[in-house]
């Protein structure tokens, strides 16, 4: 059988999903479960390794296993003709395993270890097409940018260790609630850990790797953007939430970075012409929403959005993958009118777009509405307005994408549209169901199952729970519909010239297409700077250290030359030296009385 590696991987992810489901069902009855073994002894401290299950972990566990299963199945179809299919599935499974390990971690060190392994998985997958130069650069960039964030997490982790004497989550939180750590230190640690989350979740200013990560095969993008990797950052904040609740300043930092990233990425998403790039920026923006929620005491809202986003973002990427698979281009300016040729894809993509735009009754509607409520309830009105604008932009750029790809006329003749295999269609349909339905897990109408579940064992987080008000819902709905309507007017009805503003507002347009020149800035400052410093050290090496080399060489040669010169053969000289030596010895002896 040709694709045996792929089927093994799919089977094992089926197994992972079944086990996750089993664990989840058990978790419904029992409480938090913890298992630990000693991993490393440092002096008198023991660092352990183990598994922890609580409501948040359980939810993530099943979410990760489910999304990963869908993507494994999809990849069988998408990658069927790739020679290195086995390698691909090995990487994919490693990636999933790392994320599952991260979710189950009972202590911060183990969390960090799997966190890095998740990074490795994404690095390998982004660089899967290793022979492409851009894939190489993108993989490298992803690893380095996230590593920068990771150092924040590492420092935070070590500080926690010295402040609380433990790395275990429970012990840390007990120490914090017991007031063992002073406020300034808590804020510092909170911000440092958040830097880790910034790197992983592609928040400003460490977001630049995420759009480049689109160089990987599309199923990978789906996995990175839906349930693994980027979700890990938001999940980290959720896991460490008791720490954040103890520091208002840290929370504000989280909220401001999240809110800014939400609108920042949305504006870039408006002008990108690569189908995957638009989706990438939409992920950054949505992650910003999640962080914003986390930062405004919307714990449930943030996790809820993480949950719904996993489904519709995976769906959108898989649908985009189907389009790319069919037409062999990623440029949306060369697509158009694909609705008739790719009916199923078009419908699923539309549903995904409606979900992310927050169209009423779709999953994104409920979670986004809850975020907006949380921001409002927390009194961050400025951020609330920003979030609302970002939500408007979201539906605008999503439907710009949808209309340009699936409607209108074909802009360029695409000679052959390949049929989409069943293995790809199946997960798309499954995810479509969830993209619609997953919102109903937590609504103000039918009951907040998800919220109750998350808060079941952590009553301390209960104060973060917000009831939504009707007018927030109305505002969210209006904004979402407005964006869709505007996109419809521009791209279908053509009542506005979509190209006109490129010349009338050339400066803004360039700023957006060039992504605010952040890449260029980093290149000119940090990348160039590191190279410059390295070359400066080369000079130090050549002249400074080189001088030392010749000094030692001279020293040794001079000494040996003078040594050989002293072999004069004259007995008088020898005797004189010997006598002198004896005088010195005797003098020492007299002065010190022995040694």
């Amino acid at each position, binding site marked *: 059988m040709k694709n045996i590696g792929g089927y093994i991987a799919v089977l094992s992810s089926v197994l992972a999903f079944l086990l996750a489901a089993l664990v989840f069902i058990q978790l419904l009855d029992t409480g938090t479960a913890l298992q630990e073994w000693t991993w*490393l002894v440092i002096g008198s401290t023991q660092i352990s390794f183990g598994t922890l299950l609580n409501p948040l972990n359980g939810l993530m566990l099943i979410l990760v296993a489910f999304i990963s299963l869908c993507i494994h199945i999809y990849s069988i179809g998408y990658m069927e003709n790739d020679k290195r299919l086995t390698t691909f599935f090995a990487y994919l499974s490693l990636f999933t395993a790392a994320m599952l390990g991260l979710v189950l971690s009972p202590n911060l060190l183990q969390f960090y270890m799997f966190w*890095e*392994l998740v990074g490795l998985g994404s690095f390998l997958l982004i660089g899967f097409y290793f*022979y492409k130069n851009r894939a190489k650069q993108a993989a490298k960039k992803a690893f380095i940018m996230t590593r920068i964030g990771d150092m924040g997490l590492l420092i935070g982790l070590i500080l926690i260790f010295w402040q609380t004497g433990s790395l275990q989550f429970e012990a840390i939180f007990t120490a914090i609630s017991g007031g063992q750590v002073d406020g300034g230190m808590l804020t510092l640690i909170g911000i440092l850990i958040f830097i880790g989350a910034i790197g992983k979740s592609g928040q400003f200013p460490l977001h630049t790797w995420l759009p480049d990560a689109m160089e990987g095969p599309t199923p990978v993008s789906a996995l990175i953007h839906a349930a693994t990797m980027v979700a890990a950052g938001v999940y980290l904040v959720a896991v460490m939430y008791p720490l954040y609740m103890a520091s208002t300043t840290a929370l504000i930092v989280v909220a401001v970075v999240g809110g800014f990233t939400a609108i920042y990425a949305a504006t870039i998403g408006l002008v990108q012409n690569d189908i995957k790039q638009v989706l990438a920026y939409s992920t950054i923006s949505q992650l910003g929403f999640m962080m914003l929620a986390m930062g405004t005491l919307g714990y449930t809202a943030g996790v809820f959005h993480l949950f719904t986003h996993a489904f519709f973002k995976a769906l959108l990427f898989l649908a985009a993958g189907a389009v790319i698979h069919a037409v062999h281009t990623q440029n949306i300016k060369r697509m158009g009118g694909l609705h008739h040729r790719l009916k199923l894809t078009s419908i699923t993509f539309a549903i995904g777009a409606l979900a992310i735009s927050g169209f009423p009754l779709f999953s994104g509607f409920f979670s986004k509405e809850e975020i907006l409520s949380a921001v409002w309830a927390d009194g961050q009105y400025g951020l609330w307005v920003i979030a609302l604008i970002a939500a408007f932009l979201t539906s605008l750029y999503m439907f710009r994408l949808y209309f340009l790809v699936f409607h209108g006329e074909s802009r360029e003749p695409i000679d052959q549209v390949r049929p989409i295999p069943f293995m790809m269609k199946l997960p798309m349909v499954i995810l479509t169901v969830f993209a619609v339905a997953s919102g109903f897990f937590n609504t103000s109408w039918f009951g907040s199952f998800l919220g109750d579940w998350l808060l079941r064992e952590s009553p301390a987080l209960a104060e973060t729970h917000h009831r939504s008000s009707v007018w927030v819902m109305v505002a969210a709905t209006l904004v979402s519909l407005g964006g869709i309507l505007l996109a419809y007017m521009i791209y279908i009805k053509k009542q506005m010239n979509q190209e006109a503003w490129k010349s009338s507002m050339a400066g803004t347009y360039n700023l957006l297409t060039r992504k605010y020149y952040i890449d260029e800035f980093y290149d000119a400052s940090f990348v160039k700077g590191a190279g410059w410093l390295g070359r400066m*050290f080369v000079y130090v090496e050549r002249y*400074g*250290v080189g001088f030392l*080399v010749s000094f030692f060489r001279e020293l040794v040669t001079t000494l040996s030359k003078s040594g050989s010169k002293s072999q004069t053969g004259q007995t008088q000289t020898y005797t004189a030296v010997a006598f002198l030596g004896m005088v010195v010895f005797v003098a020492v002896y007299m002065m010190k009385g022995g040694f």
Partner: protein
Amino acid sequence: MGILTLLVFSPVIGILAFLFTRNSVDQQRTHVLALMASFVPLLLSILVFVQFQAGNSLTEQVSWITFQVVERTLILNYELAADGFSVVLILLTTVVSLLAILSARWLIDKDVKCFFILMFILEMGILGVFSADNLILFFVFFEITLIPMFFLIGKWGGTDREEAAFRYIIYNGLGSMLLLLAIAVIFVNAGNTNFSVVAEYFSRGEQEGLQLGIAITLLLAFGVKLPIFPLHSWMVKVHVHAPPALVMIHAGVLLKIGAYGLIKFGVAFFPEAFGKLAPVIAILGLINLLYGAFLAFVQDELRAVLAYSSISHMGLILLGVAALNEAGIQGAIFQAVSHGLISALFFLLVGILLVRTQTTRLERLSGLARLTPLLAGFFLAAALAGFGLPGMSGFVSEFTVFIGIFETMPVVGVIGTLGLIMTVVYFLRAILNMTFGSYRNTFGNLKDLNMDEGLSAATLLLCIIGIGVFPNSIALTIQQTLETILMGIGG
């Protein structure tokens, strides 16, 4: 005869075997003989390890020289002993030596017999260094390692081999001189150079000035070996121009003598003096870490990248020593072992690569993953280990060192994390340049790893992952040694 003596002198079997065999026309036979002979120390070292774990004493003592100077008796015995730190390094030595001798068959083709004889002398010297229980014996074995290295570099090295050999001997000769000076001063003061006697003598806390003086001398002497900036230039030359099989031992084990000496004599004998020197050592560590990292970033020769990365990694050992607490010292020991394995793996791969491409210049290599995916994969794995991916030995040492340094000098720790970022940057730059990208067909139809290449690389990688996943295997072995050292520090 005790097992340690057997172990230390077991390489003599190899030496004798080659002295009394004729130059074989069939080089294959010479290589097989060398390989077989190098299994003896390995098996003995495993036995030593087992004995140690079983809690048996590994001390051997034979009276050697006693002499009277004025009214003082100076005692010099032949005495060997092994604690947790030495046992781990002994095991590292035999494993790396075996693989180095195995890998010699791919690249060494002139005067093979002579090469192996020198390699065995070298191995004997290193084993002696790690088993010696007094300073004089330590010094004797230390010198024994010096001579064969000189000839091995000078004769079988690459383009600039003579310069490398001379630079090596000048720097290490000067280092030895300082070491001898320190040892002589210790000897006349303590009347004995047995480790425990010396430690006890100086623990009385007298002669503070003298102690500080000896500590500084030791820091300089071992600083050449480690190496510490700015005494490192010999080591870069050796890395680049010595034969890869030799560099496996050089980077893998020999440089670790620096760390071993610093911790076992420096910190353990003169804790207070080292306490005073700690800020200096920390700054030297930072310089090593960052200077090495930024230089590794701009090199265009893989072996030079690895050389500077060694300097950078040795910075972590210095940081651990500077921390002067449980975590720091433990981290430094872990780093010594871990870096030994990782650089051995790297230079094993360099050897494998050189057979195929005759060059390690980065600009000439590209897209190796296409034809030699296994080789490329091992290189990537070695790089991952190098920048401390969790699950590999490098992570444990990095993490423990940083836990240590953050307790005593958090600012140094924060600056040090910049080094950890740069490590990723330069390793990925170098390795991806070689393995990723398009293959330009410069070297024709490259063949991927064969059986013994793959097995030897896999052995090292397994050790690296083994320590990374079960770090307690090392931590528990060195625990007692660590406690002894820390007792002196008073922590």
